């Protein structure tokens, strides 16, 4: 018997799923009568085939990651451009401002690529026996192109779906008695056997407090440009603790609720922002602590939290923090307001 070697055409780009512990590369190919999902983990490549005659549905769900990427990259670009402007105004050596301006192109380019690739999405393919994620199809235009590309071979393998038959099927499957005349030979699928997780009632108070605190943090960062009083530093510490507490509360409350993806995404963005900000602050403290002359606690505070404008690093950090806090806080509050005005709050949970 001669070896059969079907020709495969790659569809989309490969996607990398990685962490400290693993690195998995996903690729998607189209063959003559099937799709090939390739998963490369370490030095092993595994293949899964989905024949066109078996594909029941392709499901695409839009996600908010492109907006989160855009917010991050936009903030970085803006902050670096601001720094370049400050350098230019302060008449530092001309190459410094130019170099910083050129560096701003790195996140700027990322922002453009992100915008060009379109909204992010999760794509799933369903057959009679399994549902598989199509990881390489993580952008909406690409997923739409994929649906357009597979529709013809799938329909030539299965025939065309009549909308009336689909409606009848859906109505029959929703009815408790069974699945209609076409599928009556098989046992009826009882919808009660499929586990359905109920949504937890949640009004969004923890998120309101979190986003409001972020705006307070913005105001606090801006005030630090004008005041170096110890009370400001102590307020900053209290604000940090309050922010962390409300963030933990918001993250624990949002799981399993009807809270929109945008608000949930913004909450995770706040976590990333706070982790980065505190890591940066801690590393700065480690460098500055040896310079303290052990005179008084107030001088320790001055060493650890130098006033804004004393160094470029501190100034850039404060500007970036203020931008991030303002952006995330205002976006979150707007989204919460839209949710409150668009949908009535869920009823309180029964005792």
């Amino acid at each position: 018997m001669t070896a059969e070697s079907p020709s495969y055409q790659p569809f989309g780009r490969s996607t990398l799923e990685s962490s400290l512990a693993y690195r998995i590369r996903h690729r998607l190919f189209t063959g003559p009568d099937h799709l090939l999902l390739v998963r490369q983990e370490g030095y092993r490549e595994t293949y899964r085939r989905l024949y066109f005659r078996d594909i029941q549905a392709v499901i695409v769900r839009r996600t908010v990651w492109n907006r989160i990427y855009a917010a991050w990259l936009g903030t970085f670009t803006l902050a670096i451009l601001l720094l370049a402007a400050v350098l230019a105004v302060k008449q530092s050596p001309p190459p410094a401002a130019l170099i910083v301006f050129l560096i701003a192109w790195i996140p700027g380019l990322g922002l453009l690529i992100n915008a060009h690739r379109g909204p992010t999405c999760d794509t799933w393919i369903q057959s009679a026996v399994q549902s598989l994620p199509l990881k390489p199809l993580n952008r909406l235009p690409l997923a739409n192109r994929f649906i357009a590309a597979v529709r013809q071979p799938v329909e030539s393998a299965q025939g065309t779906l009549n909308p009336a038959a689909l409606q009848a099927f859906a109505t029959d499957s929703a009815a408790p008695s069974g699945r209609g005349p076409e599928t009556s030979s098989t046992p009826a699928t009882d919808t009660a056997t499929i586990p359905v997780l109920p949504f937890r009632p949640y009004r969004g108070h923890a998120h309101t407090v979190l986003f409001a605190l972020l705006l307070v943090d913005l105001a606090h960062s801006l005030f630090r440009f004008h005041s170096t009083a110890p009370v400001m530093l102590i307020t900053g510490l209290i604000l940090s603790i309050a922010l962390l507490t409300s963030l933990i509360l918001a993250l624990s409350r949002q799981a399993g609720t009807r809270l929109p993806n945008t608000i949930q995404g913004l909450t995770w963005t706040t976590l990333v922002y706070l982790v980065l900000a505190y890591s940066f602050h801690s590393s700065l403290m480690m460098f500055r602590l040896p310079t303290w002359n052990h005179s008084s606690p107030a001088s320790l505070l001055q060493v650890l939290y130098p006033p804004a404008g004393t160094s470029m690093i501190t100034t850039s950090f404060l500007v970036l923090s203020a931008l991030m806090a303002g952006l995330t806080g205002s976006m979150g509050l707007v989204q919460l307001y839209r949710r409150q005005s668009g949908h009535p709050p869920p009823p309180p949970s029964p005792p």
Partner: protein
Amino acid sequence: MTETTGTNTRVICPKCRQELPWFALNTDTMSLCTQCGSAIRACVFPALLHTHQPDPDLPVPVAEGDASCFHHAGRKAVAACEECGRFLCALCRINRMGRNVCAACLSRQKHDGALPNLTTERILYQQIAWTLTLLPLLVFPFLAITAPIAFGYAIHAIRQPPGILPQRRWPMILAALLALAEFALGLWIIHLMLDDMA
């Protein structure tokens, strides 16, 4: 939502696992999931409506004068394996590209690499060879040990039957040549070290 297996009879939202309403299916634009509010586009095909009928070609008991299956003495043979010639019942017969074969022959062919269409996994020897060629450059005194192993993997990658995905041959040859060069370099380093010790 994680990868699931089971019997799918409806289209569900990947986020909230609730059934999508029929008016959200086969639309050209995004629709909102009525449960979680996610923007969804679900393209449905006729296979969703099909039911799996039992195979009418079930094995029948062997009668007087009939040939019986090699594996099931009580069942009537309906075909002979075109590879080994064994008689097969309807259950044991596998129709592979219009040819009747038995499970053992199919398994052997798959193992020999003659059926790339059935391959489910592959070890990437070429990448192992490249890793073993490049990484030990950081610990160059051990080149004399790692280079022959890298060369072995590169040769194994060259001799491997072609996989189902197109793979270029020249990177494997280059890895083998680099491994040979590294082996020579490793030997030279050992020679220098021995000279120093003497």
